[in-house]
């Protein structure tokens, strides 16, 4: 342990954390569960959802553990009657501000429904009538982007999407808009995301605790209010759109891929992040015109299925013929950003060493 370590006590248990840690960091080290809605390790804490409040000895008010600095000798309580009453009261308020299903549970169209989870775990205080907040969100008919859906009535205004877009993507396509009970998420002049700096990375979806930001294609195929048509499961794979090697979790329904997410932040090299291709470009998997085997054009001008051996031989013959007729520099080799670094290397090897031309290029090299 370094000299910087801070010793504190949480729920009567001692723990040591490095300087600069928060109370939440320390609690996690002890596997003490503290509910959170507005925090994500990838962005700075905002302390605004108030879900994670704890009692710090000597402090009159409750403080957000996600932002409160751990300090030497500090004594923290993460559950007692006061905190319990606070959590219940807060959850009552969230519930009154949220779209509910016919069973009175918060609706989420995404993969997370943390509000519902916390309601199950911590219960509620007073049963309040829905507040019908005066939120002015983008009109659905104008929001023509194909990928990202925003349901203001499932939003807890935690601001994570905004902070992610700013602090991680450095795009700032969205912002908190309005004030008071009307506060919601919007774009400049409430335009479609397509007319903003948005890169459609879907990171705002990934961080959303309540599925207010969701994958539009998944929602239209998978109305969450109905039971799934076939058992769902998750399959880990590597994205093959580029050589970075992001890990993907393919969510499948029967043999259909219905949604793509990243593994949890901190567990794979993409740290919870994906780009528009990895997250959304999976329609081709089930596309009618998808190539699933090598095709070679026959004398009749039509493409015919064949084996890899035949197809590769055909390419080799063709290249040699061009070389013989017009010289090596009549050839050019273009490889794809969907190839790995090794594959790209081999492609330029083929170009330079096997054929002796520098006419080689890669689609992402411009």
């Amino acid at each position, binding site marked *: 342990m370094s000299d910087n370590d801070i010793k504190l006590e949480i729920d009567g248990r001692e723990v040591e954390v490095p300087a600069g840690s928060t109370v939440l960091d320390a609690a996690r080290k002890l596997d003490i569960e503290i509910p959170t809605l507005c925090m994500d390790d990838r962005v700075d804490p905002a302390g*605004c959802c108030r879900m994670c409040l704890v009692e710090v000895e000597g402090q009159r008010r409750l403080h957000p553990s996600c932002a409160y600095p751990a300090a030497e000798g500090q004594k923290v309580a993460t559950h007692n009657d006061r905190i319990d009453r606070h959590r219940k009261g807060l959850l009552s*308020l969230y519930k009154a501000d949220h779209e509910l299903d016919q069973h009175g549970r918060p609706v989420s169209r995404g993969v997370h429904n943390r509000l519902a989870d916390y309601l199950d775990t911590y219960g509620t205080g007073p049963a309040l009538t829905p507040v019908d907040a005066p939120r002015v969100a983008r009109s659905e008919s104008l929001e023509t982007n194909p990928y990202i859906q925003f349901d203001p009535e499932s939003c807890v205004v935690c601001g994570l999407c905004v902070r992610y877009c700013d602090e991680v993507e450095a795009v700032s396509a969205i912002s908190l808009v309005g*004030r*008071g*009970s*009307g506060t919601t998420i919007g774009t400049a002049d409430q335009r479609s995301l397509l007319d903003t700096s948005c890169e459609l990375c879907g990171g705002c979806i990934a961080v959303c605790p309540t599925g207010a930001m969701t994958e539009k294609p998944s929602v239209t195929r998978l109305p969450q209010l109905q039971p799934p048509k076939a058992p769902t499961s998750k399959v880990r794979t590597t994205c093959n759109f580029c050589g970075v090697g992001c890990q993907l979790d393919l969510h499948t329904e029967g043999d259909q891929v219905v949604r793509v997410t990243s593994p949890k932040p901190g567990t794979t090299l993409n740290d919870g992040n994906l780009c528009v291709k990895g997250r959304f470009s999976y329609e081709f998997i089930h596309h009618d015109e998808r190539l699933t085997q090598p095709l070679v054009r026959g004398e009749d001008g039509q493409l015919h299925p064949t084996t890899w051996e035949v197809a590769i031989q055909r390419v080799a013959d063709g290249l040699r013929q061009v070389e013989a007729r017009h010289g090596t520099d009549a050839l050019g080799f273009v490889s794809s950003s969907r190839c790995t670094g090794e594959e790209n290397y081999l492609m330029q090897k083929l170009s330079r060493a096997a054929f002796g031309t520098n006419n080689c290029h890669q689609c992402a090299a411009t």
Partner: protein
Amino acid sequence: MEKKGAKRKVVLQLLEEHGGMRPGVARKVSEETGVPEADVYGVASFYTLLSRPGAKTRVCQGLTCVMAGAEQVIAELKARGEEVEAVSCLGQCDRAPAAIDAKLELIPGAPSGGITPSHDALAIDLAGEDDPSYAAFDKARDEGPDWIIEQLKTSGLQGRGGAGFPAHIKWHAVRTQAELTRYVVVNADEGEPGTFKDREIMLRRPHRMIEGMAIAAWVAGAAKAFIYVRGEFRDCIRALEAAIAEAGERLDWLDIEIVEGHGAYICGEETALLEAIEGKRGMPRLKPPYPTEKGLWGKPTLMNNVETLACVPEILSRGGEWFKALGKTEAGSKLYCISGHVGRPGIYELPLGVSLDELVEAAGGYVGTPKAFSPGGASSGFLPMDLRGEPLDFGGLAKLGSMLGSAGVVVLNDTVDMAVAARWQQIFFEDESCGQCAPCRIGCRVQRQAIDKFLDARAPESLGHVEEVAWEMDAGSICGLGMVASLPLQSAMKYFGEEFDHE
């Protein structure tokens, strides 16, 4: 993540110049500043003078103005086909019902209220002649910062912005920071319903406040001072500019910048105010860290209310003991704003700790049969008349579950329905919540709907959850607004229970 070289600080000013939140304006301001467009739009949408721009009459719907017939004024203007908007308290309660025109200038109505005639035992002395000599500053500089802080300590000066925090502690805290770039900020955002004292200081004694600010800057080691004035106080801004010009080279060493507010009560909260100066949405920050440690752009910042700073020159001229002795139950003389059902609404400088009866006596007596009063603005809730003899000070009122706050005292007589009065205060808090944290964002709306529903049907069961929701707003909110936002309704129910039973 701020882009390098982005000129965020001028975002609000540019938004105003381009006419507020209209299509295309966010893009223009974004191009001019390098701040992302969505961000600019989000900022614009926060401030009512920007999000609801336009040439129109803005009529105050603060409690005092409503009691004085603001609703009729609105109806009449509308009937004449004028564009009107009802807005939160304009800080003109002594001339209720108040309104401002398209250029935010006060529409001449009743003359401004009464003030205490000048005499010797007053720290502010609104009626006295403003003194541009800056002699107190010269004396302070000769005596040195330790002496100044010692005098403030002896004087017992408590912050006049609402919290009553001892001034000398903040001054000392900023002075002793390791970081050497420091700022001084004057909080002139005066927005607490019922409060209009800072307005009159800026109009009548601008030098007194500026001198206090200069002393603060000198003690804090700040080369730059900001005065954040609510945008609706056009005449105050002019008075300050004139006084700064008049002070001339005496203040050359200090860079003074007046920053205008754009319509958001919450920007009176110190950390929201810092965000506003920085060109952001005025959402309060988490504390700790406190502004004395990490304030404007992360630098130590000394912020005081207009009245607090205006007390300083006389404290230093005449000594801390002199100031302390001016008080009754707590130190100093105090500007009490009084409006509502009294003979001569206005601002009366009295010993800190006078009772309501003593204050009202100075203000020309009660009008009608008094029933309730608010001792310190909307945030202090309502008290019944049997507490009329209690000292109006920081400590005593806090013990009663109320507060002196900004000393915006409002008197209500028996023509007022307490449920209706409570509703106007709850409307104020719902309109002015910044919306950052759920307890306040949702809670303010819940409370307002509860009293609405009660008034619709006089059904007491609609008030069944008021207490529990209030508890959570107090426990869970980030800032003082959410913590006290249920008080008007709670206190009305507590002290005037019979009006909430049934009909």
